[in-house]
């Protein structure tokens, strides 16, 4: 079994947010939900100010606090290292959101079908898309995946359950890279088997000293950053995406 992990090279990331959009289209996540979020940050004062970027998916923590607190085992670790969430089981208590130190969980505050960007209700459109919502709805997401053969893919399913980055389990099972990784124009993101010392990700981590977000919380994230440095406390966001409120 591969143990998947991600390596994000901050020396390459140019904050383009293509990963955010790739994730949204692939996973049909509702408006305001950013399973991948790229922070654009500024530090210092003019003229000694600088800009940095920090993409943030779910960390797929090895010791995932969200898994521990989920009362119904809707959250669990896959053999492949992914933190999965069975949206068919989630009771919507949002304890995972509370427990996760990274803020990567999104509750479906509304019926996700209603807040899927394009008005799929347009009759002319329905005629050509057979009413799929969103019109580009990805049929893969309705399948069952992972070791529990459960509903763990995609983000467009139910009101009142939580969703988060799945590491694109519906793609990794086909042997594809996650959508964000596969699309990064800067080739800043890498995905692979952290247990295999020969894998692309292991090699990168051997070559460069990386860091992980909030190491001190001992969540043991499977997302590593190389290049750049951990975000400083002086940093503040620019061009923040507020999402739907």
């Amino acid at each position, binding site marked *: 079994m591969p143990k998947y992990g991600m390596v994000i090279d901050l*020396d390459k990331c*140019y*904050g*383009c*947010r*293509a990963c*955010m*959009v*790739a994730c*949204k*289209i692939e996973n049909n996540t509702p*408006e*305001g939900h950013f399973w991948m979020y790229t922070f654009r940050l*500024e530090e210092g*004062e*003019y*003229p000694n*100010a*600088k*800009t*940095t970027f920090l993409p943030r998916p779910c960390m797929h923590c090895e010791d995932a606090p969200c898994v521990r607190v989920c009362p119904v085992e809707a959250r669990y670790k896959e053999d492949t290292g992914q933190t999965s969430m069975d949206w*068919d*089981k989630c009771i919507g208590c949002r304890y995972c959101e509370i427990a996760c130190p990274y803020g990567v969980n999104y509750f479906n505050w509304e019926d996700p*079908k209603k807040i899927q*960007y*394009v008005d799929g209700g*347009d009759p002319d*459109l329905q005629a*050509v*898309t*057979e*009413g*799929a919502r*969103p*019109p*580009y*709805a*990805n*049929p*893969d997401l*309705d*399948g069952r*995946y992972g070791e529990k*053969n459960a*509903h763990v893919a995609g983000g467009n*399913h*139910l009101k*009142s359950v939580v969703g988060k980055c799945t590491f694109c389990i519906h793609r990794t*099972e086909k042997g594809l890279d996650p959508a964000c990784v*596969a*699309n990064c*124009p*800067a*080739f800043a993101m890498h995905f692979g088997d952290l247990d295999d010392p020969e894998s692309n990700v292991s090699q990168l981590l051997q070559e460069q000293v990386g860091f992980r977000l909030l190491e001190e919380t001992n969540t043991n994230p499977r997302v590593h950053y190389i290049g*750049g440095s951990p975000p400083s406390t002086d940093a503040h966001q*620019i*061009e923040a*995406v*507020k*999402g739907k409120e």
Partner: protein
Amino acid sequence: MRVSRRTVLKGGGVLGAGLFVTRFLPGMPGGGSGGPAEELAELAQLNEEFVPTTCWIGKQDCGIIARKVNGRLVKLEGNPEHPRNRGRLCPKGQGQIQAIYDPNRVKTPLVRTNEKGVTGTWRQATWDEALTMVADKIKEIPEDDRKKYLLWQKGRSKAGDFYDDAFVKASGATKMGHGAYCSDAGYRAMELTTGLHGVLHPDFRHTRYLLSYGWDGMNGGGNKTCQITWHQQLIEARERGLKMVHIDPSRRSAGPFADEWLPIKPGTDMAFFLALANVLIENEYVDTEYLTKHSNAVSLVKADGTFLTETRTVTIENDDGEEEEEEVQIEQVWDAASGGAVAIDADRVQPALEGSYTAGGVSVKTAFEVFKEHVASATPEWAADICDLKAEDIRTVAMEMGEAAMIGSTIVMDGITLPYRPVGIMGYHVTQQELGFQACRAAALVMMLLGTIEAVGGQRTDYTWKVYKNWEPFGDISVKDGPYNMYLKGSKFFPINSANPSIAAHAMLDPDKYELEAVPKVMIIHMANPVISFPNQKTIMDSYELFEFIAVIDPWLSETADLFADVVLPAATIEKYEGPMSANTQYVDAKTLRVPPMDPLFDSRGDIDIYLDLCEKAGILDKYLDVVNSELKLEDNPLPLTERPEVRDIFDRWAKQQGLEGVEFFEQQGVWQKGDVPASKFYGYAQDPPFDGNRHRFYGESLLRAQNDMKELGAGEIFWRLYTPYPTWMTATLEGSPPEYDLYLISRKLIEFKQARSTFIPVLNELAPKQFMEMNPQAAKDRGLDDGDEAWVESQNALTGETRTVKTNVSYLETIRPDTVCLPHHYGFFTNPITKDQGPTSNTLFFSGEGYVTNTADQSFHVKVKVYRA
């Protein structure tokens, strides 16, 4: 790659998402997925298909693989075979799937039912009716008058063979583009200086020192590209140790990639470059060999600024192929060997690069000598004052560049020994400022001093080596007396002319002043939204009121269409054949086509189809096809001129002409890889003779001659003052605004959007839902403005005193000069419900016309403003 396969997804539950909706009532438990029997019943067979096509939003036509399931588009992913994007897409490339399925597209042809100038009311029409209306308007104008009365206005379009060439030629229209708003000032500067078509970019694979001159690498495209390509090359270059110095009022555009940032005051780049030249010359970082052999820096200049020449009679071939004798003026140089002035092309001449001489009783200097004197006072201290930079920083940059250029070194590429000068500049839209043409020339002169033009690792302009058609005419700029055509081509006002629609608007509104031959009557607008994209909004709109008839070809109801169109013809988006398009990255050559992943949605049609139908109705189909045949070089299998072809068939013929099996090649592969560009096609230095024997115009003598002609014809100083042989610092017009207009307004692109053609894409819109004005926190606080506060921005035209005002929200940005505010492009729309109330376009604030254009009729995106609390 059009793989059709029937896939059975794992474990069922894969039926249409609709099933799930009914299964889960609000708050009800799930788990209704039933037992294995039910799951088996749900096993759905998916007909999965992958169609290669290209991004239709951006200007570099990134390769796309469209994933289709049961005939429905599900995802657009990058095509790994496409060298420009290597399998990756920018946010717009990813998000455009929503635009394709946007229910707010224009679904059928529309005919206006109310007066123009206000939001339109429409009735749906058949294609036949709508096309006939447009064709009749064309036919109403006698063919010979069409240049005067029929205007074809395009924006950032593709497939120029079909539109710009074939349709414009067949219809006889006058064509105006978006170039004067984009980067044409830089194009004109480079065409005049080196003969290359483009602005500035480095030879990324070999460059070690990059001056990023207003390059918005994080958001915009830089020279010629849209987004991804340069960025990928920059990253690789940085891994090889490239140093990047960013010259820009704002650092946002360089993100974390700037090793150094010089926050230059807007509009002062020319002074900066002149100071670089000053330091380089003082420290003898001068590639004398290049200047002597390949530039006119050796030509002798008389006291009046013109060249010392000799007259020679040459035999030339005229248009009819007959030989003719003509007298030409040949520049002279000082021959060190013989100690006299001789023709620049004389045998075994050893031209002196420096010195003052007397030749035939006339005192002359080499052009280089003139330049030395010209920049002698342009010290870093002098420029520091103008640019509001530190003199030592300017000096350091100059010294570093001088060092990095490794003047004298060579490198072997593909077996050819070439000069190695790993220093380059990247700059594009930044040339759109009043002094932009000359600032770009100043940048080029710095690169010429270092000998990096077309050297390995050095300064590049075009993707490959190709002398552009303007090179010759720019050696002798013609300045004519009126009357002039609608955009004042060849006029005493703008003899080098970038066909600026705003200039045309001013001319239309005051035809006497600009000696206009005629006010145009009919306009076809194609892939452009001038009301939003082109400054000054008010002038553009006022002039559009004067047209009798306007047709707009657009997939959406652009604001221009909404206010001014009589007829709207709905174009398809990605669902059409279009091309052929270059996929060149400068290093790899490739060609691609846009292949429709599905039929045009609703009642839209591909643009080429629209033009074919329109030409047929207007009775000009044969002419149209004739040009298509010649533009596509369909020598072996030309289109019959009498019959309206299928668009696919045209591309099929073209593909076969290229030696491919046919259009299926593109339908399957997407991209035709032609391979690496060899050094011999890449570097001007690798030509035999180098640069095809052209001597680059270090000294812009033709500019001075044009100035003299303009003066003679009575053009005002505002028009001729920038026609100087060397870039000469002068205070920009906008500095004449009263002191309360104490801020510079600039503009830039956002990575999330493409010009005026993607803001309505909801997933992108969500990322940047409102116009914002970037402002240094200190400057904002001084005006009592908090982050997010509403503020008025008022611009002032220093010449006419007019003011324009918009309201927007302040957004703090530490990485911008305190005297500068920036309003990104891409806002100010109102027809698509998604873009309503997003805040203004900055093009309301920028002025057009004198003082706010370059000498080459290119729009400036600078203006002085004041900002105050709303």
